[in-house]
């Protein structure tokens, strides 16, 4: 009987201690608002998956201190402005939500930035559009604008490959892709490269037979493809099938830095040049661990957008932690901390993420080439 009483007392004490600890635990609430459906789902779903994994890992590793955690919800902007405006308005009304990671891209992100600035609610959109930053102090971008990234591949085209006449194939219905393509065109033209042709495809297109025949029967000494990885691989296959001279180099931007590109393209994408913030499989301990863990968790290899989501969550988590340390766990505190993040370890580019004084993100790029069915860093 005495033993039973002692046991009950001990249990009650433990329960009281647990309750006390949980009362002191802090929860920092945020929302991952990405395009899980609709035209930009190929970006948004991957970003959301990468971000959610990062948040889970940070919590499991006690990043916010004993008992504290980042609480997140995943929501769908549906690549739709009306849904995005409605969601951000609703989230802004919930005082517990400190920040939104999203919306994903294009006009949807800009519309989201508009309402976020009106409501003084921090959002970090996946897009690389400078318009989002210019919209006001509450809206951030997660990916590097074309001004930062495209010089890597444009300089490589003009200076290393010595191209003189380049055919361009871009995506016509996604603002971020259009911005990258135009910047590439401007930069290579400024270095004396002529544009042999400029063509646009829609993200949902798969029939490139006419375009491939046109390019294969035209004169050019390089082909630049600015599309997502799977679509780009498909384009390369159709270009090869249409008889494109194999000695003509094909280049792409960072979206090609995905295992999907090699998986879908097979032998056809051999020797294709690309630039990547993400090196599939990883290039250091942090990125290699991410690559391994992500594939183990989801069953699919990590690509550039998974890495963007994972890295973005590291940046947000650090901003929240800094806001906590400054005693300003408010939307304003998180916003101010976010804009001053520098040298945050991430799994992309040069391995660290920083915002400059204009809130423009920098994390670097690498020029890669598909060699023997894998990505190899050019020059290493």
């Amino acid at each position, binding site marked *: 009987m005495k033993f039973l009483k002692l046991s009950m007392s001990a249990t009650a004490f433990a329960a009281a201690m647990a309750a006390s600890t949980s009362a002191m635990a802090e929860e920092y609430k945020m929302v991952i608002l990405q395009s899980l459906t609709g035209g930009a789902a190929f970006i948004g779903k991957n970003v959301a998956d990468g971000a959610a994994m990062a948040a889970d890992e940070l919590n499991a590793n006690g990043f916010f201190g004993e008992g504290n955690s980042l609480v997140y919800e995943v929501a769908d902007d549906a690549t739709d402005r009306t849904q995005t405006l409605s969601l951000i308005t609703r989230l802004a009304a919930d005082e517990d939500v400190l920040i939104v990671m999203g919306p994903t891209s294009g006009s949807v992100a800009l519309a989201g930035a508009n309402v976020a600035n009106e409501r003084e609610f921090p959002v970090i959109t996946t897009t690389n559009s400078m318009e989002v930053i210019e919209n006001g102090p509450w809206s951030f971008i997660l990916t590097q604008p074309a001004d930062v990234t495209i010089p890597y591949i444009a300089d490589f085209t003009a200076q290393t490959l010595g191209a003189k006449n380049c055919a361009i194939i871009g995506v016509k219905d996604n603002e971020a892709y259009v911005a990258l393509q135009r910047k590439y065109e401007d930069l290579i033209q400024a270095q004396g490269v002529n544009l042999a042709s400029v063509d646009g495809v829609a993200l949902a297109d*798969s029939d490139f037979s*006419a375009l491939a*025949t046109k390019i294969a029967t035209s004169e050019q000494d390089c082909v630049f493809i600015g599309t997502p990885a799977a679509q780009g691989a498909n384009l390369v296959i159709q270009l090869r099938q249409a008889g494109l001279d194999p000695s003509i180099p094909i280049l792409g931007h960072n979206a090609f830095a995905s295992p999907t590109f090699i998986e879908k393209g097979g032998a056809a994408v051999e020797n294709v040049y690309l630039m990547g913030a993400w090196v599939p499989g990883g290039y250091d301990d942090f990125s290699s661990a991410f690559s391994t863990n992500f594939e183990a968790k989801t069953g699919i290899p990590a690509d550039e957008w998974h890495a963007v989501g994972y890295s973005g969550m590291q940046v947000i988590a650090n901003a929240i932690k800094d806001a906590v340390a400054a005693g300003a766990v408010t939307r304003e505190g998180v916003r101010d901390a976010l804009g001053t993040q520098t040298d945050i370890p991430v799994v992309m580019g040069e391995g660290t993420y920083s915002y400059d004084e204009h809130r423009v993100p920098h994390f670097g790029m690498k020029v890669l080439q598909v060699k023997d069915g894998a990505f190899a860093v050019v020059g290493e």
Partner: protein
Amino acid sequence: MLSQQILNGLVTGSVYALFSLGFTLIFGVQKLLNFAHGATFMAGAFIAYYCTISGLPFLLAIGFSMVATGVIAILVDLIAFRSLRKRGNAEFPALVSSIGVDLILVSIAQQVSKTQVLNFPFGTFPVKFYTFMGLRISLLQLVILATVAVLVALLIFYLKKTTFGRQVRAVATNERAAALLGVNAQSVYLQTFFIAGALAGLAGVLIGLLFNSMQFLMGEPYMLRAFVVVVIGGLGSVPGAIVASLMLGVMQSLTVAYLPSGLTDAIIFALLFVVLLIRPNGLFGDANAVAGGTRQ
């Protein structure tokens, strides 16, 4: 390049024909626009893909996919159309209902594929190219052209020369009169949906093979073009759908090849408006054209 582009356009157009025939058949018989047709097309590609990677021989996978999409189309009829048809004046509610089915199928496909672009494993179909009078044509393109030609001929024979075809035309012309003559209209509807679904499924597989790409939204652009095909060809007109599909395929190729980028859709829809102005019932349609018959 011109002849090569025309060939490319004919191959693409022949697959449009396969897709559009089912769409126009349903419209011809029921006067309903089935917006779930694009999702059925996508489902065909997905089912064949998953069957193939599960180890099923490719030809069996195609056959299974066609049966499965035929069944999906029947379910669409039973779930989305039948009860509305009984009420009469079903055009608009059925349109909304079929959009709902389309969204459900697309969402399922997105979940199943994890939003990834799928492609048949390398070697699923032999990659062989032939050069003939300067034209470069693949074995796959030849097989597609032949398959579509045979299927279209069979469909026309079926509609024109068989008892079922006469029943289809009878129901399309006047359902009540056909019923009085002993035709089971519900059975005709189900068979029509099955054929339309199977053709859409096959079109999905062929497109997936031809362009090495399948994703959950792949039906949307084809759906939009099927509208153009049935309007230009004449609502409910089978020959019209075939001719308009081939025209559309060739025009698409030529605009990509010879005109500034991005004008393709603008030109296709401009053509649609021109046809509507000159021949409001389409190139092969009259005001009462229905799947080979004339609505009374």
